[in-house]
């Protein structure tokens, strides 16, 4: 539980500074520090437990159905990082109190800072991979907010955007890697994954996992060639640079490398990729740092270089190197945070960070200068300071390398070169700023900062010294447990001592210091040499890439969708064709073994008719009435086909829908142009369209044939067996509709109702253009409602209603049911509309069709809800048999109530559509609010 508190306390703390924003600057700072301080206390209280090699865990169900849970664990590595995050975080809070001016929104800054703190704690504490990723992304977002804190500066906005793009991109790669890891190991629990290193390394996905994983880690930790975002993130306020961009967030990448070290390391690919990237980053960072005139720029590149060093150590592959990496994580966090803070003080008190102007500050701020120089010496690797110890470990590890075979001697050589550059830029930081003549044109006269602004630097510098002189006492246990967590096993023998005697690593240190001195003394020549090269500002390169990407995507989008629906449709169909034709190439035999029905001449004739009618529709589609008549023939034959192939319900439905559809088409034709141009497009387009259509048709036909000649694998036996005993009906199709799949049907009648409502709305306030003559110029007949039709249809109405009632009632046991009965009733009523006109009908049948749809849906829903009253599931049906004299035995089922709802909805929807469209031809135009 205490592990949970470490995360929860700062989470609560996010709100405090904003809520008490008016309390004044110092109280807000105290309030902000409160929760991290408490969390730190909890953490330290756990220290004995962690140091005795037990891992406190906490887990709570989160989305149990998906197997997700909130799970935290506090092993040595997590403990070390928590200590850095909370400890340095507290110092940064204190420092920021004095750094931020009155104009800055300090409470908001503190909230962002705590937000970041929570995210970072989440990363290191998480023991679920997906949860880890979530917090990982939160660190990117909080970093974005903090870099852009001075959002009125262009630099800040651009830097924030770049950092978010690069780390966000890496985060997506990391997600892919974690998902693959989960796929391979079958678990997202970190502790289990770490024990399955063998499985991961032998899996076929290993290289993909490694590449994606390293992409995530390298972008976060600013490794070459993704290092460019970090210097631009320096537009952030200095406390942020000290906290996020040197001590904690950029360490998340190396944290990840260390965390998954047992699972992913140990292969040739890991060593080559990680160590070479680390080496390149270390050298590039150290080299560029020397030439930066901006104080923070120098520190930023030196951070890049040191992160490279840690990566290099993790890539060397020996256990001792991993220990050294952990050690350097601690040391770098301590000295770099203090250096950034010192740089912030210099900036704050002198008004500039330009090292060409900053000279001889020793006279103005001797105390700060001393602190900064101690920290910078540690960065350079001077003995008796903590930086020396871990650098010594690096040198000794590079000596026994064999990764590069015969060329392995490159590694210690390059490491020494990197060390020399580190000494050179550290010297520049010390000599150029604090000595080297007098300051030039400073905006302010520099002086010592407020007392408490210096305290965080003092604390960190004292730590540098203490760790440097008494390493075993200060960090022995911490390093040991953290290394054990990284290696997941025994920690090799190592000795944390200042003096190991005269040996090769010491010689390399001496060489590095001598080389650094030489480099610095000859810096003029180096600067002149560097001037020969055109400097590529990463910002412009990045901006250009983003612009080109946007332009490219825009072009692609415009090519895909130029606003023409016709073209989109063509592309869509082409895509569907490619996708559906693909699998057919793999199908060897088109014809399967399912017994085929013998050919019947009647069926053959009908099929012939169907094909001819289809082609007539196609060929004469410009003569719209002809095409419509041919279409109705197709529909008729389709319903005959349903009837012939044992689907009487479908045949009835298709037949009645056919009638309604054709009527609707006829009405629509009245409002649309009577003819299309004979050739609506260029001949080439027509040929192209027809070819694609024919290919598509042949693919579908082939699939259909292949399917028909293979034996079915169906779940319908269940429905057939349970139809009578479970649903109380013998017509299985109807029982499926109203009982087994009743919920689907409820959804479908809802869609029907929505479509009708949509049409109703489309028809409202529509201006229509009614031709006064047909396409040949003949005027319409004056007799609008032929007498004979009126009489016949009127006498047919009761008969039709009787038929529909019969079809409805028998639906449960024989072909029929709510859908069909509804359509028949609707047709009977439409016939009256056709024969008598809208006005005549409106007088005699003032029914609100909207209300009909609503009541139908309501009845269907209520009949489903009714089963809740009896403690059953939604839409469970009930049925029983009764006996009445004269009538005999009959069945009552609750499904009939549901079917009645379907019936009403179908009538309402059909009539709402047709009657309202028909009404447009009369003076009774539809107005909003009327029916």
């Amino acid at each position, binding site marked *: 539980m205490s592990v949970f508190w470490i995360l929860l306390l700062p989470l609560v703390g996010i709100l405090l500074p904003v809520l008490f924003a008016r309390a004044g600057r110092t109280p807000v700072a105290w309030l902000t520090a409160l929760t991290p301080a408490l969390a730190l206390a909890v953490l330290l209280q756990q220290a004995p437990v962690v140091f005795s090699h037990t891992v406190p865990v906490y887990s709570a169900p989160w989305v149990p159905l998906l197997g997700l849970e909130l799970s935290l664990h506090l092993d040595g590595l997590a403990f070390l990082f928590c200590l850095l995050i909370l400890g340095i975080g507290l110092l940064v809070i204190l420092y920021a109190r004095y750094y931020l001016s009155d104009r800055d929104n300090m409470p908001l800054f503190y909230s962002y800072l705590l937000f970041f703190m929570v995210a970072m704690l989440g990363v290191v504490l998480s023991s679920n991979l997906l949860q880890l990723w979530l917090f990982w992304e939160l660190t990117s977002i909080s970093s974005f907010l903090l870099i852009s804190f001075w959002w009125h500066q262009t630099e800040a906005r651009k830097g924030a955007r770049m950092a978010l793009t690069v780390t966000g991109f890496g985060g997506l790669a990391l997600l892919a890697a974690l998902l693959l890891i989960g796929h391979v190991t079958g678990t997202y629990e970190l502790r289990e994954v770490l024990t399955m290193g063998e499985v991961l390394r032998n899996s076929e996905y290993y290289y993909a996992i490694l590449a994606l994983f390293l992409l995530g880690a390298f972008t976060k930790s600013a490794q070459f060639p993704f290092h460019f975002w970090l210097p631009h993130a320096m537009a952030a306020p200095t406390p942020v640079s000290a906290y996020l961009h040197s001590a904690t967030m950029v360490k998340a990448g190396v944290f990840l490398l260390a965390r998954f070290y047992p699972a992913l390391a140990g292969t040739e690919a890991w060593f080559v990729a990680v160590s070479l990237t680390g080496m390149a980053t270390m050298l590039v960072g150290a080299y560029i740092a020397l030439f930066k005139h901006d104080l923070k720029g120098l520190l930023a590149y030196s951070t890049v270089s040191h992160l490279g060093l840690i990566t290099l150590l993790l890539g060397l592959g020996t256990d001792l190197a991993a220990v050294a990496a952990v050690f350097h994580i601690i040391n770098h966090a301590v000295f770099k945070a203090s250096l950034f803070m010192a740089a912030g003080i210099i900036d704050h008190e002198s008004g500039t960070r330009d090292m060409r102007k900053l000279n001889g500050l020793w006279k103005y701020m001797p105390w700060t200068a001393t602190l900064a120089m101690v920290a910078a010496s540690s960065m350079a690797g001077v003995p008796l300071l903590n930086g020396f110890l871990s650098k010594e470990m690096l040198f000794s590890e590079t000596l026994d390398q064999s990764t590069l075979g015969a060329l392995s001697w490159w590694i210690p050589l390059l490491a020494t070169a990197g060390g020399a550059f580190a000494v050179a830029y550290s010297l520049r930081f010390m000599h150029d700023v604090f000595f080297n003549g007098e300051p030039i044109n400073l905006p302010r006269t520099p002086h010592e900062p407020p007392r408490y602004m210096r305290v965080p630097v003092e604390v960190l510098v004292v730590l540098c010294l203490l760790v440097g002189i008494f390493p075993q006492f200060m960090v022995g246990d911490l390093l040991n447990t953290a290394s054990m967590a990284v290696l997941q096993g025994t920690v090799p023998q190592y000795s944390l001592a200042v003096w190991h005697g005269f040996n090769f690593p010491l010689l390399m240190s001496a060489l590095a210091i001598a080389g650094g001195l030489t480099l610095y003394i000859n810096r003029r020549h180096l600067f002149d040499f560097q001037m020969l090269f055109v400097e590529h500002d990463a910002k412009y390169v990045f901006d250009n890439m983003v612009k080109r990407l946007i332009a490219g995507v825009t072009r692609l989008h415009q090519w895909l969708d130029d606003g023409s629906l016709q073209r989109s449709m063509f592309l869509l169909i082409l895509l569907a064709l490619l996708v559906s034709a693909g699998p057919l190439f793999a199908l060897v035999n088109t014809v399967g073994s399912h017994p085929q029905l013998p050919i019947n001449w009647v069926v053959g004739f009908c099929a012939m008719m169907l094909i001819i009618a289809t082609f007539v529709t196609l060929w004469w589609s410009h003569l719209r009435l002809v095409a419509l008549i041919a279409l109705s023939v197709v529909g008729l034959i389709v319903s005959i086909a349903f009837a012939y192939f044992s689907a009487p319900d479908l045949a009835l439905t298709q037949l009645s829908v056919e009638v309604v559809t054709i009527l609707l088409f006829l009405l629509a034709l009245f409002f649309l142009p009577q003819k299309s141009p004979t050739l609506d497009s260029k001949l080439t387009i027509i040929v192209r369209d027809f070819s694609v259509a024919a290919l598509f048709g042949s693919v579908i036909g082939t699939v259909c044939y292949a399917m028909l*000649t293979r034996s079915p694998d169906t779940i319908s036996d269940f429905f057939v067996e349970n139809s009578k005993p479970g649903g109380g009906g*013998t017509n299985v199709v109807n029982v499926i509709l109203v009982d087994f799949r009743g919920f689907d049907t409820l959804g479908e009648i809802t869609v029907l109702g929505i479509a009708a409502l949509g049409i109703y709305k489309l028809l409202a306030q529509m201006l229509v253009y009614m031709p006064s003559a047909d396409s040949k110029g003949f005027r319409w007949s004056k007799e609008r409602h032929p007498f004979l039709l009126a009489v016949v249809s009127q006498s047919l109405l009761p008969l039709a209603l009787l038929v529909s009632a019969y079809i409805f009632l028998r639906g449960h046991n024989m072909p029929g049911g709510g859908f069909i009965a509804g359509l028949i009733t609707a047709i009977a009523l439409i016939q009256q509309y056709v024969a008598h006109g809208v006005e005549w009908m409106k007088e005699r049948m003032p029914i609100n069709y909207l209300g009909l749809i609503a009541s139908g849906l309501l009845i269907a829903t209520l009949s489903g809800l009714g089963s809740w009253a009896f403690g059953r599931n939604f839409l469970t049906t009930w049925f029983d048999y009764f006996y009445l004299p004269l009538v005999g035995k009959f069945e009552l089922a609750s499904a009939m109530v549901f079917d009645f709802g379907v019936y009403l909805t179908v009538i309402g929807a059909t009539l709402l559509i047709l009657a309202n469209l028909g009404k447009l031809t009369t003076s009774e135009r539809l107005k909003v609010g009327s029916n």
Partner: protein
Amino acid sequence: MEFIFAVSVGVMTTAGIYLMLRAQTFPVILGLTLLSYAVNLFLFASGRLTVNGAAIVGHSEQLADPLPQALVLTAIVIGFAMTAFVLILAIRARSDLGNDQVDGRELPPERSALEEALANRVEKLSAVHKARNDKPARNKRKPS
């Protein structure tokens, strides 16, 4: 028999797709209707073809598969709703845009006298329509 069935489905799909690629709304809706016939038959075919075997318990020895039938039944009704919606949309598009082009922009290359007259009428009416809609008091419909 299966072969004839498959050929019919293929032919209807071809005609449906071809018509759906036309530039005027009416042929597109015709194509959509043909395609939904084809789709319904195709789905129905997934239960294989049976003669004299209506899915009624006790009706015959070998019953046709009822599940595809139930699915196709609702598909037919929904298909009707969709056809109706698209038809009304086409009418509405013609009334608002003044042409029956799918893309709503280019006018047909050749127009009959009637269509010419109609287009004139459309322009006149849409001017009236616009004038009426511009009056805020009577403008009940949200401007699109």
